[in-house]
């Protein structure tokens, strides 16, 4: 049995992975972000790296000296909370607001957030669906991306391509679920390991 603290697929190791843009370079992405006045949507289904990219852009803004704030919307949260409204109201006009899970807001919730953030320099959000903001990037995954991440996490440990391919298909490209399944696979004895 591999102990949780030694499991290469432990959550903190997944968190430490760098976002890897697919089909676009980081420089191109940042140039687009600037050109669009720091407004845009990161779109894609679950497990495609949207939140990771949002955090990377947030860090990048801070490194550039750009004021920035971040909100995370909870599951089924249709409106911005009072505390979140106060947080946004306290941001300076030249700040960029980063919102994770924009799809949670209903139409009124979005309309209010849009009104509150008009004075800000920028608004970037992740969403499962297109709309509300122009699409900055559609996050995609691929089997080769999964292979690359697994190789990085394990230091090139032996995982057959067939196994990763089956995982990728089973979880329909949700790389986060694939990596969590690999955590379980690593944590149990080989002889009792079932399908991931």
């Amino acid at each position, binding site marked *: 049995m591999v*102990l949780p603290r030694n499991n290469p697929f432990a*959550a903190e190791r997944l968190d430490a992975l760098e976002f890897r843009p697919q089909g676009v370079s980081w420089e191109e992405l940042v140039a687009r972000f600037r050109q669009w006045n720091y407004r845009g949507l990161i779109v894609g289904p679950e497990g495609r790296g949207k939140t990771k990219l949002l955090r990377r852009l947030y860090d990048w803004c801070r490194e550039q000296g750009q004021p920035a704030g971040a909100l995370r919307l909870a599951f089924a949260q249709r409106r911005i909370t009072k505390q979140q409204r106060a947080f946004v109201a306290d941001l300076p006009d030249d700040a960029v607001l980063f919102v994770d899970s924009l799809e949670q807001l209903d139409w009124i919730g979005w309309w209010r957030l849009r009104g509150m953030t008009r004075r800000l320099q920028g608004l970037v959000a992740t969403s499962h669906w297109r709309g509300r903001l122009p699409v900055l990037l559609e996050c995609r995954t691929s089997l080769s991306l999964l292979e690359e991440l697994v190789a990085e996490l394990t230091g090139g440990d032996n995982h057959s391509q067939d196994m990763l391919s089956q995982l990728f298909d089973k979880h329909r490209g949700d790389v986060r679920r694939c990596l969590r399944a690999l955590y379980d696979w690593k*944590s149990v004895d080989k002889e009792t390991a079932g399908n991931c």
Partner: protein
Amino acid sequence: MKLELHSADARTAFEPGEEILLLAAWELDSPVDGLEVRLIWFTQGKGTQDVGVAWKHRWERPPLVGNESVQLLLPDGPYSFSGSLISVSWRLELMMLPAEKGVHMPITIAPEGQEVLLSKIE
């Protein structure tokens, strides 16, 4: 730059509730606001990582070269342990402030200094 932190008897495994003496030594390249020793617990594993500071001690505006000692009463728990989903682990840190850069030393806090391994529930 050099930062060192260790227990006086160089052990890294301790009994819960044990009192230990920590020794810190440093050679800094430039002045810092402070040096802080911390005892940290954290989880590792499948879920979101949780981290907490169980104890800390600060030396304000330390000289560029120095050494200090401090007494630490370790908590009674939680024990260092691993199940199938998470490990709870402990570490000691010596951090420069405000940069939050420094060194850390993993330690075990559990009966007989042995990490508790929880076997699978049948």
